[in-house]
Each structure stands twice: as structure tokens, then as C-alpha cells.
């Protein structure tokens, strides 16, 4: 049986280690995220409005895409039990309904003394274009006992 409770400690993560996950973003995802966050942004919700902008059609809420990055960290690297301390994000390109987004997170620094790990992050679409970049600092779980 695969145990998802396999989060790494600051001692166990290695610089250069990477993890990723992919998801095709549906209209339902975009609409539920807008509803959850109280957004009425017509770029997310109004096809007529969005088609009158240079974007041409509705886009997906940016923070839905960016939230896949801490999800990747919590699922895989450093994994279960890590806590998100700090985040920087740049949104470089719009994401459209139906796009398949692949995250990539890479350990680029660790501070054993303060139990902190620095992670470089990116999201790409199905054409390989980078849509989001970021950098996070997380607090990996401590060793059991």
C-alpha cells in the first residue's frame, strides 16, 4: 500500500529535488473557485465581456492555478505535514478553460537550523508555455518523536 503520509523533513530533502502534477482545468473548476472566493470578475464568468477583450475568451482565476503549487508541495515535496510560510508569484500568461496545467516545484535552498526550505515554482500549459512562476518558503514537518 502506498502511504501518502511520507512527507520529508528538512534533513531529508535535497537541493535540486523536483516534483510535479498535472490537471486539465475545467469550467467547473473555474466557476467553483470564483464562487468560493467571492469573485464576480467578468473575465472569469462572462464570455461576452471576455470575448470583447484581447484575451478573447474567459480565463481561469489566477489563484486557482497558483494554488496547485502548494498542493504539489503538500502532496509530494516536501510532502505531508509541511506548512506554507511565504509566497511570491508572477502571473505571466492567462490560463483558459480546458488548458492542462503542469506544476513543477524544485528545492533550491534549505536552512536546517530554522527548519525552512525554499522552493522554485512554475506552472506550464499544454504547449509548454510558462504561465506562473513563483518562489515559496515552507516549513517541512519535523521528524516523528
Amino acid at each position, binding site marked *: 500500500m502506498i502511504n501518502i503520509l511520507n512527507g520529508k523533513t528538512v534533513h531529508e530533502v535535497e537541493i535540486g529535488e523536483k516534483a510535479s502534477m498535472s490537471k486539465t482545468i475545467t469550467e467547473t473548476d473555474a466557476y467553483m473557485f470564483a464562487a468560493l472566493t467571492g469573485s*464576480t470578475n*467578468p473575465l472569469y464568468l462572462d464570455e461576452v465581456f471576455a470575448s*470583447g477583450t484581447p484575451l478573447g475568451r474567459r*480565463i481561469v482565476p489566477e489563484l486557482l492555478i497558483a494554488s496547485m503549487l502548494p*498542493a504539489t508541495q503538500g502532496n509530494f515535496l516536501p510532502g*505531508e505535514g509541511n506548512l*506554507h510560510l511565504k509566497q*511570491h508569484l*508572477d502571473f505571466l500568461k492567462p490560463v483558459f478553460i480546458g488548458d492542462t496545467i503542469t506544476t513543477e516545484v524544485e528545492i533550491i535552498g534549505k536552512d536546517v537550523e530554522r527548519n525552512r526550505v525554499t522552493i522554485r515554482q512554475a506552472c506550464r500549459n499544454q504547449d509548454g508555455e510558462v504561465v506562473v512562476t513563483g518562489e515559496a518558503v515552507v516549513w517541512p514537518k519535523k521528524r516523528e518523536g
Partner: protein
Amino acid sequence: MRAYGSFSDIKIGDRLRYAKTMTEAETYLGVGLIGALNPVHIDEEYCKKTRFKRRLGVGLLVNALAVSAAENFLVGPGTQLVSLDAKFVAPVYFGDTVTAELEVIGTDSEEQTVTFKNTMTNQDGNPVLLGEFKLRVRGESGDQHSQRQDGA
């Protein structure tokens, strides 16, 4: 509170306050949408063994409230997020009422962007999230929507 229609109405120092009681449902729907399995958000028994003792909200979902508030009240309609910085300084628990206090700290008429300082506190007045974010605004001269309607 006033709703802004266009970029030129936005002034440095403009403020907005918006509060929401964060529910278990938001976290559960949110982690489903983003595919997050971290037990710190969804496993009460796991959390009992952590220093926080309870399940925690998701930081970027908490931050999203502030972004939505800015989009809805300050610079709508039709904004795009350009960049964001956040420090998650304390946990948000289910049932906490989080207040976002937003202040316009920068505008750029060429880029048509507005930068907000974002201070989020819980019902006890303790900060939970401190950060900034930048939104690109559509409207007036930068409003490709109305240009398109008028011209093409």
C-alpha cells in the same frame, strides 16, 4: 465603500475592508479543486498530533478573499492578477473571521496596474497574512473591451 468604474478614479491611499468567516466547506471544496492531500487541511486526527491541534485553512485560498474584494469593489470589472506576495504569519482555523484591509500603495497608468497592500487579521485582531498584490485594470483608455465594441 464605493465601487470604482475606471483606473483614473483610483488613488494612492484608497482603502477597503472586507471580512469573511472562513468555513470548513471552503477548505474542503478548495482542496478538491486544487488536488491537495496535505493532512494539515483535512485530517483532524493527524492535526491533533501537531502543534496546531486542528485542521488549517489553505493560505492562498485565504489570500484569494482579499484579491476578490479588490476586484469586486475597487477596480472592476475585468481585472487580472499580475503578481502577489504573501507571508502566512499565523494559521487560519475553520470558523475564524478573517478581515482583509486593503490599501492602494501604487498605480501605474502605463501598465494600467494597481498595487495593494494586504493586511489580513483574525477575529482577535491578530495578523494571519501580510502581503501585497498587483492587479491589471481594464477601463477608460486601457479598455480594449469598449474600444472593440466601438470600433471592431
